């Protein structure tokens, strides 16, 4: 029995966590979930509380009920929700943001895709980072795929398409220069292997990583362009769809479904979900990560 363990002494605060939160924030969490599928766990509810706090400060509000009224009044709710979502997704852009997602990709999904493509002569893996912002996710994917080129992906062609609506983001992404904050979850192993130090404290992504990625500007609501994004094995679209209204979101998701190969996967941000907007995708679980799966033809599950 290890109950005399000193770690017991170090954690008393945890047990009381979440008990003193104003119930209005749980209601706001429900509004946010229903509007865009983002769900903040109780243990992360402080992020929502902080986000609301910043908005209230900007608006000069002191009472959370007043903020609730603003979020629910028909005249103000859409605009305010957008502001709040901006606050909630701040700081989510770093490299290696979700290790469980990377583990699922390398340990479970890649072996599965490699198995499906075993008979194909030219082996190609196509990944789309849709809404790539300033490139953190795209480079994380590229580095992890490079790690596999000596094993599972030996001899494969790897193509990563990274698109964003914002021109400036795309330019920043192409430069591939990151500071401490964006690199806070990147291990020394990856920093040494795939980055070159610049003046100051910044690191630049090396050319061998960059050459896997094509950055370009794309509007996910541009139907004609969306039709061209064919043959994807994986699509990542984190914290982008939350800004879309129901019908536009549904349209984009249907595009993604046709853009994917059978057996392909679609990843959202870690606290995002599709809100049952598409019943062709299967919600699948990996340790610590969720994804939407377009069933393979041979699984007969379509």
């Amino acid at each position, binding site marked *: *029995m*290890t*109950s005399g*363990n000193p*770690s*017991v*002494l170090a*954690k*008393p605060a*945890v*047990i009381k966590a979440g008990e003193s939160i104003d119930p209005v924030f749980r209601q706001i969490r429900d509004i946010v*979930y229903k509007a865009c*599928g983002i*769900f903040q*766990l*109780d*243990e992360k509810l402080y992020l929502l509380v902080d986000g609301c706090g910043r908005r209230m400060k900007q608006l000069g509000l002191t009472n959370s009920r007043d903020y609730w009224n603003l979020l629910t009044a028909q005249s103000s709710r859409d605009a305010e929700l957008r502001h709040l979502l901006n606050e909630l997704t701040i700081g989510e852009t770093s490299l290696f943001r979700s290790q469980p997602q990377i*583990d699922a990709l390398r*340990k*479970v*999904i890649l*072996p*599965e895709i490699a198995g499906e493509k075993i008979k194909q002569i030219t082996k190609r893996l196509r990944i789309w980072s849709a809404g790539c912002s300033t490139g953190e996710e795209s480079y994380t994917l590229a580095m992890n795929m490079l790690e596999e080129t000596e094993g599972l992906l030996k001899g494969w062609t790897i193509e990563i398409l990274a698109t964003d609506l914002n021109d400036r983001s795309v330019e920043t992404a192409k430069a591939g220069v990151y500071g401490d904050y964006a690199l806070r979850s990147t291990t020394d192993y990856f920093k040494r292997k795939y980055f070159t130090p610049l003046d100051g404290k910044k690191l630049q992504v090396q050319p061998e990583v960059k050459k896997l990625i094509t950055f370009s500007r794309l509007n996910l609501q541009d139907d004609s362009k969306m039709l061209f994004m064919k043959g994807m094995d994986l699509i990542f679209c984190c914290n982008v769809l939350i800004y879309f209204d129901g019908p536009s979101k549904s349209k984009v998701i249907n595009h993604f479904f046709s853009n994917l190969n059978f057996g392909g996967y679609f990843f959202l941000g870690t*606290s995002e*979900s*599709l*809100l*049952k907007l598409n019943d062709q995708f*299967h*919600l*699948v*679980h*990996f*340790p*610590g990560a*969720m994804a939407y*799966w377009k*069933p393979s033809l041979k*699984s007969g*599950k379509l």
Partner: protein
Amino acid sequence: MTLENHEAWPTMTTTVTDKIRDRIERIVTTPSIPAVFLPLVDLLSGPAEEANLDEVVRLVSYDNAIAAQCLRVASSPLFGMVKPPKSIAAAVMTLGLQRVETIVLTSCMGEAFSREKWGIDPVAFWRHSLGCAMVSRKFSEKLAGVDGERAYMAGLLHDLGFLASSMAFPEEFAVAVERACREQIPLHEAEQATMGFTHCETGRALAEKWHLAKDILDVIAHHHAPTQAGSAGSLVALVHLSDELCRVRGLDYGYYERHKVDLISDPAWSILLQDHRDLEGVDLARFTFELDESAAKVGEMVSAIFGPVAA
């Protein structure tokens, strides 16, 4: 998954069945399960507000080991009491029913199975068992007509076979556990590959010996192959799905499983759907997020009693 084709007694050779029964009989003869265990778990598995506190205190007092453990944990600095509780009643009040339940369970199992022989990390085992109990009950709330208390109990005991295997087949089971961790595969697959049978069979033998109720026994025997459970299908399917979810949401056995869970393609999902059309309306993503919340609480509770899960 390899176990889909696997069945319990009927298709196993008599020799293997006899071997399992014989070992269980010999190894777990004494001590048997403490008498207060089942009544206490029964009492505690319902909603907290309905539990009869006096009855809990009465049952706890019957068993020295459980009573002592309740007093000891309630006196720990974790609860910040100025004076340690002096009576069983005060200890039970301090701890809250959920923690009392964990203590009951762990003390009882601790008495029945000598701890140094456990083939798996006890902390991870309890975290998974309590987690599965909690998820099973949560799941049952989404389905009309399912008894949440039964679901909780079934979730709690579904992996009883791990304890039975640890005691009855210590060397063989250790090999299976080592292989599962090394190859990052589900434990039952590793057991099947190395031992030729799994914790479902050893658990069943022990459940028979302990005269556990038929529905619980079915869950213990079939939770990895719910299509073979026959009439008890619904409860077995529910615990199967909860078990799968636990293993991908941090209530695992403490190692990474290369495991993809596709609930709606799972045969267990179809079994449940036959009796519960309301399952179609469940928002699985949201259910998962809510589950994470409770999972964090289970994790904290188990750590508070045992210390952290070994890395």
